[in-house]
């Protein structure tokens, strides 16, 4: 992996550990007060605790949504490869059909369902993660499908088939080992896209509750502060969002390059 990917990885580890343990810090004495003061919209919390909590929720949503979408993509791509012919075309066209439905419509529709099922005006974190999986599977499915197709044309796969290997054996022993790195890189590149999508849907008012914001929800609720003297209250969340997105891009692109080099 290149230096940029390593730096991105280190930053992500620090952010993950820092945000996951942020609730503990506030309980331990000796931690200095938040320099940004209290959150103007939710005065029971400080800007720091809201931002760090938001970082944790954004990372959780991104990782859960990305993992779910990529797992679904991998299963669909494997089924389409194993089924071949009609099944392959069905999965491919299904993904294309999904591209022509705007994400916003799917997310708003799922938010309506959540309101009916769970009650209240906001959406819970697991529901939001499931909604993000629902809109995020199509692009990774096409990418993994194409990857498996290109691996399928290689000589060693033809040789394995000629020696009598079953389709299942070809998939699990010959194709999957070369697809893992690629799928993991796609997962890492999906995470920032999911975090940004969540931030947009939260800005539209269909996201997490105000008391438990993600970074996007926090920025979406507080953007009006940019016009006044409290504009600094938005800056930490924005900077953390940029840092998270850049770090995931660096690690994801580093892994993608490596996956392409390692592949036969």
């Amino acid at each position, binding site marked *: 992996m290149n230096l940029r990917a390593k730096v991105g990885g280190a930053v992500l580890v620090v952010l993950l550990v820092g945000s996951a343990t942020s609730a503990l810090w506030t309980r331990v004495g000796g931690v200095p007060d938040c320099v940004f003061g209290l959150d103007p919209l939710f005065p029971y919390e400080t800007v720091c605790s809201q931002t760090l909590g938001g970082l944790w929720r954004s990372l959780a949503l991104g990782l859960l949504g990305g993992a779910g979408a990529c797992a679904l993509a991998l299963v669909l791509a494997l089924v389409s490869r194993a089924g071949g012919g009609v099944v392959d075309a069905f999965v491919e066209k299904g993904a294309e059909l999904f591209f022509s439905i705007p994400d916003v419509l799917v997310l708003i529709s799922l938010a309506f369902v959540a309101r009916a099922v769970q009650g209240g005006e906001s959406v819970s974190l697991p529901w939001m993660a499931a909604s993000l999986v629902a809109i995020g599977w199509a692009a990774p499915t096409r990418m993994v499908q194409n990857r498996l197709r290109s691996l399928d044309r290689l000589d060693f796969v033809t040789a394995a088939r000629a020696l009598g290997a079953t389709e299942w054996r070809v998939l699990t022993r010959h194709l999957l080992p070369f697809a893992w790195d690629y799928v993991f890189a796609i997962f890492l590149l999906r995470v920032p896209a999911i975090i940004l999508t969540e931030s*947009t849907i939260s800005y539209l008012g269909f996201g997490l509750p105000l008391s438990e914001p993600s970074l996007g929800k926090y920025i979406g609720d507080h953007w009006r502060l940019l016009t006044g003297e409290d504009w600094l209250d938005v800056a930490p969340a924005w900077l953390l969002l*940029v840092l998270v997105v*850049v770090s995931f*891009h660096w690690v994801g692109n580093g892994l993608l390059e490596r996956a392409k080099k390692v592949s036969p």
Partner: protein
Amino acid sequence: MRRLFVRLARDLMLVPLTAVLVYLLVMHLPYRQDSDRKIASSEAAGRSKLEATLGRGGPLDAWVPWQRLLSGESLAVRGERFTAEDFTRAVGQSLSLGAVALGLALLWAFAFALLRVGLARRRAGRVLEAVPGLVFGTPLFLLAVVAALLAVALDVTFAGSRGLAAAVMAVAPGTFIGVVLSDALFAERARPYFVTALAKGLTPGQAVWRHALPNAVPALLDAAGPVAASLLAGSFVAESFFGIKGFGLVYLSAARNVEPGVVVVATTVFASLLIVVSLFIELARLFVDPRARSAALEPER
């Protein structure tokens, strides 16, 4: 060319399928979580009105919104009146805004790619490397806030604010295309023909312009297709911040207020737009890429 038409025909089949899928989705959405009897009865009355206006929610009823629109009736069942004229106006607004945004995005993409390639391994080049991260990590609404504040501070005219809206929409897609184009240019620069061109006395700028750029354009077309479709379909964020009643804003308010008719018609238009743009991209590819041209003219085996 036959392949192109076969692909077009296959893609066109997705349009009615999208319409049916979206109709089924929106017609069966729960409208209220409130269990209060009065609201429930009013919702039941609303639903029966909805079914009387837009069909009973079966797959074959997906055409009812289009029939209403084409016969000049209003599509909205809850909010304000929404006719074919309103729809055409909104699509026109978004198309004109999107076309300006697409132009700006391509301009920025070329400038960014040429700068990135020209300044590689220099200090200014390292600064430029930070631009994609900053742009991709900034939600569009935050960019729109900054641009709207700028518009207020500079007291820009109506046309100026539309230009700013287009610029806001263009920044992220332009940077994305710029990154793809510059990566393709870096790959072309490593090829033997480029080194030969330099050895024959061309300056690096001339070699990039005459040799690398034409070979990198197909990569640009790959990236530009989805970007162009999404820009032309409008941006609800930019449109809401700059007060433009375009397709994006109409779509968002229809989805928010659960207006199945408007949503179905708008999604069908969006799906058709994707296909038209992908056809244009394929034609542009045939025009600029001789390899694609010869592959298209080859007889099918």
